[in-house]
């Protein structure tokens, strides 16, 4: 990682200007981000883009009120001006403003994502060829749309605070995915790999994309899409459901990750993403699920999109249990919310970029593995459904009532997979659903999925998060919700 002295000076100028203007706390973040994205569709390059963005964001606490201002122009004058505008906004902000921050020792250090192959050294022509080859390998009867994509991101950021924290990090991400759509006789179906919603990503080098073997997986994906348009519809009823690791990851994200964000618990996301069914007093006492449910927040996970050495408040990364043996034992916190609840020290504050305030966000949130294999989970099911790969999702503002759909399913009969089924959905209430968890497959079946489409905040911010999960079995689930 190349240190950028000029950038450090800009941050210092901003922080000094803010404190001179009366801020009791200030931080300045310079973020320089570059993204490459290649997408093909039906043998044609649909998108080949290379974007970059840089700027400085200055956050101040003045009279107990937050202010935030940013500027894309990296000059000392603009940095100071952003600091003063942030102070103006804080001064004008209505409210009682009794905010405190959990204490922390000033942090310093640098961090860089470990990788073998720098994705920005991989020729764009090679990326295009990878996509086109995978795209071509999905061609087949009834396949209408074939899509492949690869992406890379480099985010270089420096944070400097009025408390003496100074940290610099360079985070590298790569991702890829394929998807195809089939149609027959008015039935439309899609199939994706390695996950839905523009593939999966990992914080590492291009070796991740090479290891996904998109081209090798493409024929299976196409065959399943073509088979789905002739498959039977998933039946309705209350039954046992086994979910693949990818859908379990989606379930963890929506029904555990978001409700354990402590800013939601305190209501600060009420006007957009919603609140939480959890209350601060639930910590240590609320039964979230069965004793097989163990959830961990871990920003140190190798390859996790939510991995870092320091969050965007400079708090060092630390692995932390959130649910232990079914009991709620942790919230995802900022320094402000940690001080308010009197527990934790922050460590989950992340901003999409230089032009957004950090918010409490998931880092990497995992369902810890259990024992056995997917086959072991199926073996103990007389009648049920096995569902694979998320297709749709929705959950209420308190993160209680959810409904998911998957791309593909199979009936389970006498412990074995039977007919393929289409349009599978299931619904439930969060603690009741997790209470019905009666098996999680073991470490060998545990996979890490990286999503780049988590939204929150006003103005909106996207976050990149990872979830590790293994296939899991749930009893007495309502399956097959139809309009």
């Amino acid at each position, binding site marked *: 990682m190349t240190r950028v002295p000029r950038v450090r000076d800009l941050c210092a100028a901003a922080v000094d200007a803010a404190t001179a203007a009366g801020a009791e706390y200030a931080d300045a973040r310079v973020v320089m981000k570059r993204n490459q994205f290649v997408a093909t569709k039906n043998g044609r390059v649909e998108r080949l*883009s290379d974007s970059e963005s840089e700027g400085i964001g200055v956050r101040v606490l003045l009279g107990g009120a937050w*202010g935030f201002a940013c500027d894309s122009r990296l000059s000392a004058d603009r940095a100071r001006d952003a600091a003063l505008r942030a102070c103006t906004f804080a001064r004008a902000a209505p409210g009682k403003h009794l905010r405190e921050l959990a204490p922390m020792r000033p942090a310093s250090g640098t961090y860089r994502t470990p990788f073998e192959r720098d994705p920005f050294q991989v020729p764009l022509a090679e990326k*295009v060829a990878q996509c086109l080859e995978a795209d071509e390998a999905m061609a087949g009867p009834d396949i209408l749309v074939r899509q492949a994509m690869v992406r890379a991101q480099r985010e270089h950021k420096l944070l400097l605070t009025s408390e003496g924290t100074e940290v610099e990090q360079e985070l590298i991400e790569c991702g890829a995915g394929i998807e195809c759509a089939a149609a027959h006789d008015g039935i439309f179906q899609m199939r994706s790999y390695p996950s839905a919603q523009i593939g999966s990503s990992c914080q590492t080098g291009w070796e991740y994309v090479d290891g996904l073997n998109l081209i090798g997986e493409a024929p299976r994906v196409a065959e399943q899409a073509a088979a789905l348009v002739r498959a039977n519809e998933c039946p309705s009823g209350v039954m046992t459901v086994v979910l693949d690791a990818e859908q379990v990851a989606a379930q963890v994200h929506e029904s555990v990750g978001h409700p354990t964000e402590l800013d939601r618990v305190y209501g*600060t996301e009420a006007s957009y993403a919603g609140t939480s069914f959890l209350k601060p007093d639930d910590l240590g006492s609320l039964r979230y699920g069965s004793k097989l449910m163990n959830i961990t927040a871990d920003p140190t996970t190798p390859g996790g999109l939510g991995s870092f050495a320091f969050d965007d408040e400079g708090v060092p990364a630390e692995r932390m249990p959130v649910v232990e043996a079914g009991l709620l034992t942790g919230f995802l916190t900022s320094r402000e919310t940690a001080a308010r609840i009197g527990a934790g020290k922050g460590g989950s504050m992340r901003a999409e970029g230089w032009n957004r305030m950090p918010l409490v966000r998931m880092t990497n949130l995992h369902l810890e593995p259990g024992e056995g294999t997917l086959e072991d989970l199926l073996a103990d099911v007389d009648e049920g459904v096995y569902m694979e790969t998320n297709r749709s999702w*929705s959950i209420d503002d308190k993160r209680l009532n959810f409904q998911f759909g998957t791309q593909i399913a199979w009936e389970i009969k006498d412990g074995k997979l039977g007919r393929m089924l289409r349009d599978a959905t299931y619904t439930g209430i969060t603690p009741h659903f997790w209470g019905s968890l009666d098996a999680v497959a073991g470490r060998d079946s545990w996979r890490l999925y990286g999503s780049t489409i988590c939204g929150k905040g006003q103005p909106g911010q996207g976050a990149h998060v990872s979830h590790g999960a293994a296939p899991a079995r749930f009893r007495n689930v309502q399956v097959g919700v139809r309009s």
Partner: protein
Amino acid sequence: MNALDVARAALDTAVGEAEAVAHIEHSGLARFAGSEVHQPTLIENAMVTLRVVHDKRLGVATTNKIDAAGLSELARRAADAAASAPPDESFPGLAPPASPPAVEGFDDGTAALGPDDQARLAAAAIDAGGDVPVYGFFTSALSELAVMSTTGLSVHQRMTDATALVVAADENGSGYAEQTAWRANSVDPAGVAREAAEKAQRTRGAAEIEPGVYPAVLEPYAFADLLDYFSHDSFGALGVLDKRSYFTDRLGQKVFDEKISISDDALDPRGLPKAFDFEGTPKRPVQLVEEGVARGVVWDRATAARAGDGAESTGHAPPAELRDWGPLPSALSVLPGDAETVDELAELVGDGLYITRLHYLGVVHPREGIITGMTRDGTFRIRDGKVAEPLVNLRFTIAVPDFLCDVFGLTNKAALVNSQNFYGERYPYGVMAPAIASERFPVTGVGSKPGI
């Protein structure tokens, strides 16, 4: 520099055929929770996207480094991208020179609002909430869009927008309201907060109901959200070409109740007017549904070229980073009906549901137009033609075409409902929707009580 200057400077660095799209944002958003501002954000940014075409090979690069060195680097990266791409024989070429229609949508007073003003207008909402804590924001912005290309195209628009949005909520109830406009003085933050607080007071003691299909009145907030989600797959040409749209093989057929007419009209001064799209093509009003008959979808240059048969861009190309979604409506407008008030719609329903707002919609099946989600911040029973007791939040799983097939009526006024959650660069858009009463609103589950 204004957006046209930025686009020109970027274009000057390019070699050969090229198009530059510059997008500038000056915005402030005073977000509040528990009746105090907690996330105030001021943004200053200028982005420029350069698309170069070398022997039918296309490359796109974007930057916000708009000095000479940054733009030179932008041109190099765009050229590298083009050099790495195979020729695209289906590329229809860059848009020709155009004279976009004159539109409203810029207000000096709104453009001049600063952080003190944004905080003051947020305070007006907070003060008007009264005893009920309020959560939401006031925001205003000046944004600029310019498209310039080597074909001689040169178009530029300055836009303003302002929104006040309030959820009024305590442990026992919640209500919602919002207003959006391109003139900030058309937005009344205190009025928005009063509407939300009054609604919240009425949601206390919410009861459950059994799942089933109910007649329902949807306020404009709820109807706009439902239509916006339905439109992503169904009202764009790419959805039809890829056969995931409900309109696939149905254009020209009667698909909805004859009371339903829907257009996309970015020129309407009541909305958030736009003169051209992200390819620089002038916006055209598009009739999507006319008296229940599917009439059309929106197009960009790529989908029009793919379809052939005389198809033309209607001025609906999205930004370059969303181009693979295809053309999307951004100014949906539903023709109002005859009902003077929502109370008249409740009378038409007789026995059913009254729904203020929806939450976290998900497309279950695009081709069938099936969407699931929850109601939120003001769900009530309608009994004997009157809005009656409050209900808990309800899960619905609805085939939008079924919902629009048996329509009792619509109110005679449409409201502009903001549809942008301000992700990415600021490009305000919304849906003009009246309230609607329909015979079919399928409730598939019950959720929690309204409130924090």
